[in-house]
């Protein structure tokens, strides 16, 4: 029933390996192509070296080395990637406020349901869900 309409790239920026892996699995199941980054610095690296521009970035807030805020600031200042929409993904109680301040395109509160995760990602990747 699930048609192969995906194939687009999604950058997942998440320090918790288990969470990152779970999200990637869901995206892969839906035939997206997940790119992994465990912090902001890695995410910037991935963006600049990726062969395919991701159509959306799933961004955790609290991460070591470079957190979501720092990443977002850096992304915005780089014209080549500044237009990629960012979906903030946070377990923090004030996550939606943070998302608004970071000028995020959407906010997903942890724990997030599979359905909601897929719906939001599809919205930015222009993929209809079957």
């Amino acid at each position, binding site marked *: 029933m699930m048609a192969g309409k995906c194939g687009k790239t999604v950058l997942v920026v998440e320090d*918790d390996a288990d969470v990152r892996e779970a999200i990637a*699995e869901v995206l892969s199941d839906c035939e997206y192509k997940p790119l992994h980054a465990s912090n902001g610095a890695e995410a910037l690296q991935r963006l600049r070296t990726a062969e395919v521009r991701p159509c959306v970035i799933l961004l955790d807030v609290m991460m070591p080395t470079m*957190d979501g805020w720092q990443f977002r600031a850096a992304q915005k200042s780089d014209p080549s990637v500044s237009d990629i929409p960012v979906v903030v993904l946070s*377990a923090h109680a004030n996550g939606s406020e943070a998302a608004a301040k970071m000028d995020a395109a959407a906010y997903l509160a942890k724990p997030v349901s599979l359905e909601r995760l897929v719906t939001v990602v599809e919205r930015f990747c222009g993929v209809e869900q079957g």
Partner: protein
Amino acid sequence: MTDSQARPAFLRDAPLAFQRIREYAIFLLEPDGTVASWNEGAQVIKGYSDAEIIGQSFSRFYTPEDLLAGKPAEILSRASRDGRVEEEAWRLRKDGSRFWADVVVTALRDPDGTLRGFVKITRDLTARKLAEKALRQSEERMRLMIDSVRDYAIFMLDPTGRVASWNPGAERLKGYTAREIIGHSFERFYPEQELRAGKPRLELEIAAREGRFEEEGWRLRKDGSRFWANVVLSAVRDERGVLVGYAKVTRDLTERKRSEEAVIERARQQAAVAQLGLFALEHPDLDAVIDRAVTTVRETMGTELVGVLELSEDGKSLVLRAGCGLDVAAMGRVPIELDGVAEAGYTLSSAGPAHLDERRFRMGGFLDAHRGGSRVTALIRGSDRSREAFGVIEAHSRTERAFGEDAVNFLQSVANVIAAALERRSMEEQIRIAEQKAVEERARASQIREALRERDEFISVAAHELRTPLTALQLKLQTVERGLKMGTQKPAAGSSVEPRLEGALRQTERLSLLVERLLDVTRIAAGRLDLALETFDLAALVRQVADDFREPAARAGSELRLEGPQALQGCWDRLRLEQVLVNLLSNAVKYGAGRPISMRVERAGERIRIAVTDQGIGIAQADLPRIFTRFQRAAPLRNYGGLGLGLYIAKHIVEAHGGRLEVSSRPEHGSTFVVDLPIVAVRAAGPEQAAARVRA
């Protein structure tokens, strides 16, 4: 004179002239006293006509008393003998009334000496006599009046200053009788000093020159005592203006002067009390006020010994709190029975001032060493109901002295100032306690707020930490569920149900571990961090934990080095120590990523040290004290997740073993955490200690 023809005419006419004189009774008597002639004056004065009296005896002019005394015959006999008799005496008129007569009787003799008769000239002096009598009565009244004056010394001085008269007032005032003093110089009334200055003479000079001299000054009594006198000295002159003496009026003003001095003394005492009161207002220190009170009493009352005796807590003894002339340091407690026999005890029990009366009071305690002289004591009231009396203040003069009402009132006023200072101190103490309570309440409120904030943060952090594995768990379970709904169709290339279930299981383990840590916090707070002690090889445990961390460390770019003995047997809680080691190593990997991490185990006597050293971001000196408290991490929360409970729990685990967890660190150079443990765990951390940390 013998030849009548040769006499001038007026002399010849003299008998006729005498006959006409009305102011004098002029008549002749026979040698035996028979009236021989009678003139108009005699008729006027005595009331008889010629016919009635000529030929009668002159004795009828005499009063019955004179007749009884043989006066008529005596007069004639004296006149006959002496040639002339003059007298003033009462005589009778014809109508029996009396008149005061000046009588001159002259004997008439022949040239051969034969007595021929007498000439009698009588003048009526009744009017003059009455005037004289009135004057005498007036003088008598004056004398009586002066004699009756007892409050004034009224006396006369002669021009040289000798006492000429003396009234009873003078006797009473100065102590001399009239007999003792009349004729003596008034200089003896003056004190030696004024005598030397020539004061008495000067006063006479001024009175003589100006008519009057007045002054107040000290004078002496006969017994040598002094009195304060008001003296008025008036010059007395006769009708020609010649100084005949001085009138001196002296009044004793000693009482008035004494009361004036008392007024001055009272004013001085009131000023002293006012100054003391002011001092007490400006100086909150009670001892300073008491010392000042003692000095004030000594200076104002002039007493050599002054003491403030404080009643002991049990109310059975007095302690010398301050004093002058008394050795405060050497004086011990003075047992005072409040029986009204010891003076201070009397003052304490009666609340009234006591004068020293050796027959009535004994002094009590060390004060018996200061017997003699005069004393007065006053009560110092206490500052609250539980202590009605603070003690007594006493003033002691070494010499006998009469302490008047003013002195007693003054001492009581000083005692009242001390009592007011006590009350003020008591109120300030109450205010201080109230303020202290308010501060404590504020601190407590602040602690509660802080505890609430910590709890909120804990809940927030705990929720965050729990959501992370929950996210992974939920996604994995939902993909599995979705896969199962899809039937046999495999979700995606290379994925299958089993590994996803394993992943989900791992998340539940993470979750239960988190929950376990949260429970640890609750256990520590409740003082119930129980240890399951067993004997095992700690060196082996360290090796095992280090091995577990080798891979994560390598992933973080850190090499993990371990130094230590092969075996270290001891008695500890294995799981809890493993928890500590895992916490320290995970921190080292987290904050020291990219740099080597070392573990060093060593034994020193009966203790074991495990040091974990990283070369990471380090901890600022200011942050060191709080890293072991709950929900604290020195690093910013947004960079480093986690509950912030690890070190808090680790420290309590180590302390529960009777050990210590210590840290040394330099920012940008790294940190070293040292676990210091006894070989055999001593359960040192009691529940109370842990319970004391419970706030929320």
